């Protein structure tokens, strides 16, 4: 994997860890996703979450929330909150770039966490933006010259001619 891409992903992960450190007694886990709901980085609070907790160890499960979060923003609503017995999920849309999701310990910290989410959204927007542009930039564009069946035949014949054991 290219160094630039890896570096940006590490920075995103670092931001997730910083968010936890803002409220370590309340925030259980932080997930940062792209606009399609794919988890790019996540961090868990080892004080509040046990290592064996599969919910927090499975970003794939989180990405199954795609259908929900891809509806954000709904008009001017760019934030949703879901409350459960063992925690509260807060999701903030990072403009057109992705989503920031936090799982909280208790409802007492909803307001504070919301402020923390807002605080980091600009920085994450910038990082996700850089990630997307670096990813696209570092790819070769295929020249739009039509490939014919004869071209493929030539490749097959070329392979057969070179493949000596």
């Amino acid at each position, binding site marked *: *994997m*290219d160094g630039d*891409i890896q570096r940006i*992903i590490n920075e995103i992960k670092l931001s997730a860890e910083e968010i936890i450190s803002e409220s370590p007694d309340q925030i259980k886990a932080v997930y940062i996703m*792209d606009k*399609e709901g*794919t*988890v*790019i*980085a996540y961090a868990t609070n080892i004080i509040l979450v046990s290592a064996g907790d599969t919910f927090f160890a499975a*970003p*794939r499960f989180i*990405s199954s929330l795609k259908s929900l979060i891809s509806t954000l923003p709904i008009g001017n609503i760019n934030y949703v909150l879901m409350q459960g017995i063992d925690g509260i999920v807060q999701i903030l849309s990072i403009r057109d770039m992705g989503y920031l999701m936090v799982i909280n310990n208790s409802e007492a910290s909803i307001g504070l966490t919301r402020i923390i989410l807002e605080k980091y959204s600009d920085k994450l927007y910038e990082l996700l933006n850089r*990630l*997307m542009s670096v*990813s*696209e*930039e*570092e*790819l*070769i*564009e*295929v*020249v739009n*010259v*039509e*490939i*014919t*069946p004869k*071209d*493929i*035949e*030539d*490749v*097959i014949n*070329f*392979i*057969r001619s*070179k*493949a*000596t*054991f």
Partner: protein
Amino acid sequence: MVMPIKTIKIVIAGPYGAGKTTFVKTLSEVLPIETDVPVTKSAIDNKRSTTVAFDYGRMKVREDLVVHLFGVPGQERFSFMWKIIARGMHGYLFIVDSSSEDRVKEAIGMYSFFRENFPNVPHIIAANKQDVPNAVDLYTIKSILKVPYEIKVMPLIATNKRSALFVLVALLEEIKKTLLETSRFR
């Protein structure tokens, strides 16, 4: 007049540890594939040069025809890049580790992603590590991944030159077949 260079783009997909890098490495031992070379946009538009971001191989077939092989990072955290890498591909090889059913199941998400996003791109499934005792049979792989009837599932031993070549040629045959069918309907 400068002759335009035709580029055939082939993507090697599959989950982490399936054998994508090994596959390209084995091919490069028998075919004149350049690996670890920078992918340069300058080759295309003479504007800039950037370094390679992925497992990559390039094979020059004619002066005006090159084949590019792109390996897709298998980890799910890089899945935001799958679509970007696959853009404009002519075909893809989807490699799965067939040493156990659990390893095959790890490929479900990625394969669904490719099927959903590139439903009409020719591809084949390569069941790697078929030399491992108790490897999962091709029929079971097809069933686990819900591979459409017309898509080939082929055995692969990525470390074996003959096996790797056989799979690559099979994919090229599929691409050729699709091109022929497409041209027939024009």
